């Protein structure tokens, strides 16, 4: 039996660029107004399609950075050196331009406060984007629901090459400072500022063991970033005794897409 079930199509929409916000030297956040946006869950992504005057098209996927609580959609884009789409989005796009996108897409790599238990987020580079959507959602939703935050503590382990390249650096510090149930730990793998006392190496099993709750606490884990990082982290977590069913991964290739 193969059931052929028609599902509502995710159609292309014309979003308006409200603002292009620099985050780090290589990343920008696009703040968009999307007509009749159906809402989304933290962790989902959109497909963006660019069309040149001669009809040539290029399509890429970008994780949604904004939480569902925000009326405007934000995408954070890392400009890839040989990229075809990301340099256009970072450098060319400006306020008032239209951008064609479709979504939200993805039912697997998603989190919301209805999912109980400790939350462990592990990210590398631009892999932070969907994780940031989750943290922003957690912050907004817990406040609105007046829920006890300590019932779902969260920890983020975030790997970047250097302090200048940490996306959302200041916002993460503010979130952690104002919320005792959120812990943010960075590892800087290439350059560290003077006086840096944090991690200064690639994420490895020992680091994960130090950061994470023990497997008996059954944290939900979301890992996002370049494929080698994601594979290594997932493998280490399983070796540490975490159940594979509680570890969700999203790998970014050099295209910045989610597959």
């Amino acid at each position: 039996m193969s059931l052929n079930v028609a599902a509502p199509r995710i159609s292309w929409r014309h979003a308006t660029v409200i603002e292009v916000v620099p985050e780090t030297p290589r990343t920008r956040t696009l703040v968009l107004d999307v007509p009749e946006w159906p809402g989304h869950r933290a962790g989902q992504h959109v497909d963006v399609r660019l069309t040149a005057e001669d009809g040539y098209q290029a399509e890429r996927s970008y994780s949604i950075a904004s939480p569902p609580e925000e009326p405007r959609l934000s995408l954070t884009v890392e400009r890839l050196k040989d990229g075809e789409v990301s340099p256009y989005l970072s450098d060319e796009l400006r306020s008032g331009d239209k951008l064609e996108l479709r979504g939200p897409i993805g039912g697997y790599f998603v989190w919301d406060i209805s999912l109980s238990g400790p939350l462990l987020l592990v990210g590398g580079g631009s892999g932070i984007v969907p994780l940031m959507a989750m943290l922003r959602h957690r912050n907004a939703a817990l406040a609105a629901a007046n829920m006890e935050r300590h019932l779902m503590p969260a920890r983020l382990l975030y790997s970047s090459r250097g302090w200048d390249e940490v996306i959302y650096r200041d916002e993460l510090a503010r979130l952690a400072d104002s919320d005792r149930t959120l812990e943010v730990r960075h590892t800087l793998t290439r350059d560290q500022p003077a006086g840096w006392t944090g991690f200064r190496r690639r994420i490895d099993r020992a680091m994960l063991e130090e950061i994470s709750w023990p497997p008996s606490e059954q944290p939900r884990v979301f890992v996002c970033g370049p494929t080698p990082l994601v594979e290594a982290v997932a493998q280490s977590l399983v070796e540490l005794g975490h159940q594979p069913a509680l570890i969700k991964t999203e790998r970014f290739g050099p295209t910045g897409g989610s597959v």
Partner: protein
Amino acid sequence: MKRASSTSAEAGATGERFADALRVDGNAAAGILSELFVSDLTAARAKCAGCGVTRTIGALMVYAHGMGTVVRCPGCDRVVLRISRTPTHVWLDATGATSIVISRDAN
């Protein structure tokens, strides 16, 4: 069990009328089918056709990528559900589940 064929025309005619009363087209199932496809099936429970163990779908192992989603039994690894999405349709193969049970409260 093979039923003995009857050569009686009267018995045959009665049998056909009875069968026609039962046979309706798929639209009649629409109502009950709409109860199946609730917004979140992950709370439903599925019995694995491989090992016979029933688990909440959310507890099954999901392998998702750009081609589709494969949901496997954590006990015996057999595929319980297969889902793919084309530009125009969603495909669901549930032959790996002997049965799926959805709480009516979920609606």
